[in-house]
């Protein structure tokens, strides 16, 4: 294969990995604090819409980013309220977030712009342009979030407490630290990261919002999170791997290999899901989630 194609594939792998990575790190923060988040998909979708709508209205990609983050954090807080304050079922709340986001973005988009749920196309300063090696600033912000997450969760007092809350909230509570406050801050950080990921989709990668444009990325991010065993650097690796698979699948679309016939692109698309199931089954290694993940904290017991 000639180096040009390899460079193209690696380049598009990075592009495809960025939204995954943002959502994956969001899930990492949330689940490390003990709040399971299957609403990553919905938060990315709602921020993609809010970002595109705001970028169009105000003529600035950065204002789009601010609105994207606000929308995602707002949805995150709904999830936080249900799972932290109300001690509701976190899975149920995540499913609700996903449905709400899918429905609301489509209906509001259609009512505002009358283009079947799309936002008008964005151009010029309404989009994030490449600043370095053809990649926009959002790409570097997301990449920077990896060492930042690693450092804060592994080396700071806040991060250590946050992780402790995901393993043994009662111990943290006994030490006189608020479990709810730590979990809420994790949910907000997750919201910010999802917001950046969603904004990248509609204002960086594409030029506008399309209904359901996340197309399952939130769930692949969840798979990547398990694959990375809830750690920051492996998350980068897993997301890049899944991005690479996607890029290869795109490249091979419609390609004929002598003796094999058309490349079954679906086989490559299925790999992230398949690998995650195999990993979860404990055939190769074992993925153990934070111990208190998904368990609401009840003080008196």
């Amino acid at each position: 294969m000639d180096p040009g194609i390899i460079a193209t594939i690696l380049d598009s792998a990075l592009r495809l990995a960025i939204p995954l990575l943002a959502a994956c790190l969001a899930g990492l923060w949330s689940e490390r604090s003990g709040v399971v988040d299957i609403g990553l998909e919905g938060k990315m979708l709602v921020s993609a819409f809010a970002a595109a709508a705001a970028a169009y209205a105000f003529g600035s990609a950065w204002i789009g980013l601010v609105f994207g983050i606000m929308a995602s954090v707002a949805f995150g807080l709904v999830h936080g309220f249900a799972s932290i304050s109300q001690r509701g079922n976190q899975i149920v709340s995540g499913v609700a977030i996903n449905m709400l986001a899918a429905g609301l973005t489509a209906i509001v988009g259609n009512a505002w712009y009358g283009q079947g749920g799309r936002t008008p196309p964005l151009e010029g300063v309404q989009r994030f342009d490449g600043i370095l090696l053809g990649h926009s600033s959002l790409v570097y912000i997301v990449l920077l979030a990896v060492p930042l997450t690693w450092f804060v969760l592994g080396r700071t007092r806040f991060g250590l407490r946050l992780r402790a809350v995901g393993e043994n909230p009662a111990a943290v509570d006994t030490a006189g630290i608020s479990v709810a406050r730590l979990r809420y801050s994790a949910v907000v950080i997750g919201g910010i990261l999802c917001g950046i990921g969603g904004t990248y989709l509609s204002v960086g990668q594409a030029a506008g919002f399309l209904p359901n444009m996340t197309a399952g990325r939130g769930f692949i991010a969840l798979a990547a999170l398990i694959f990375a065993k809830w750690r920051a650097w492996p998350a980068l690796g897993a997301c890049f791997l899944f991005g690479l698979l996607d890029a290869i699948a795109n490249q091979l679309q419609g390609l004929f290999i002598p003796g094999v016939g058309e490349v079954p692109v679906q086989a490559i698309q299925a790999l992230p899901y398949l690998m995650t199931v195999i990993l979860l089954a404990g055939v190769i290694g074992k993925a153990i989630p934070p111990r208190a993940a998904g368990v609401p904290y009840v003080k008196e017991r």
Partner: protein
Amino acid sequence: MSAPIQLPKWAETVLVPAISVAAAFLIAGLVVLSIGENPLTATRYLLQGSLGTGEGLGFTLFYATDFIFVGLAVAVAYHAGLFNIGGEGQATLAGLGIALALNNLAFLPGFLLIPVGILSAAAFGAAWAAVPGYLQAKRGSHIVITTIMFNWLASVLIVYLLVNVLREPQSMNPETPSFPETSHIPFMHEAFAWFGITIPSSQLNLTLVLALLSAYLVWLLIYRSRLGYAIRVVGSNPTAAVYAGISPARIIIIAMMLSGALAGGLAVNELMGYQHRLLLEFTSGYGFVGIAVALMGRAHPVGIILASLLFGILYQGGAELAFEQPNITRDMVVVIGGIIILFAGALDGLFRRLVAQLFTRQKLAGA
């Protein structure tokens, strides 16, 4: 606060769900208002479109049939303490089972072919649910994550098969050839015509009877059978189950297979009852609606039938509404479903606490 909130049974089963549904509609009304439409007009179109005409009612019941199956599927797993959000994937595989059985066994007479198709749907759905069930039971892999992954695997698999293997050779569309005529489940208007009764024609077919029968059987199973008791024990306390001589692993796998088989009913209604061929995305996200239906119906078959009826009204009425007021697309139904899941599922405690407060205040006033 940590003590379980005690409420009278009628409040538990009727009042709390009713409040959460009312709150969901209130918020949905606000959404309608915010996009500059009148919620009352919208409600009128919605009710008229779903219940106002015989044809509309037929469509409403057709959708309700779908939701009864997926709602029961979620409920059976829920009783075993499992969250099966893989209804989409299980129904998709059930559709594959139907297509394989009907198009390969077309020589069978109709009275055999229809049951074979239904059983094949149940078997494929059960098999697709059995793998996550097995992994949960034996390897401790979280069922929520594995069923999500299996949804995506199913959708990728079905695209591959329909595009490359099962497609009708001359056709450009990724769908199978039509199923043999003998395998079509009769439409309700056809069935009524046998007895000389004319009703408006719609997609509604005899699968509704199967759905109601399934609901009755699920009730028998969960509340009146030894297996159902074991399922409920495992769901509420797996440790106690072990001491009672029940194997949680076995029960988890069985409950998941039953759940998957029930999800297959969605494929029976959509494909054998209406589409008469296998096509992409026939599940239309109904698997997730099943979660709303099961939560609203409190995982009880009667509640599920009522909740299915409500969602049937929303889907059919929503289609008519979108026709009358193009600004309110059918996505509104997804929004309402999401809010109901949030209120009836995740924020359940909020309303229960409110109702409980109301009751204590009344008691104090009465004393």
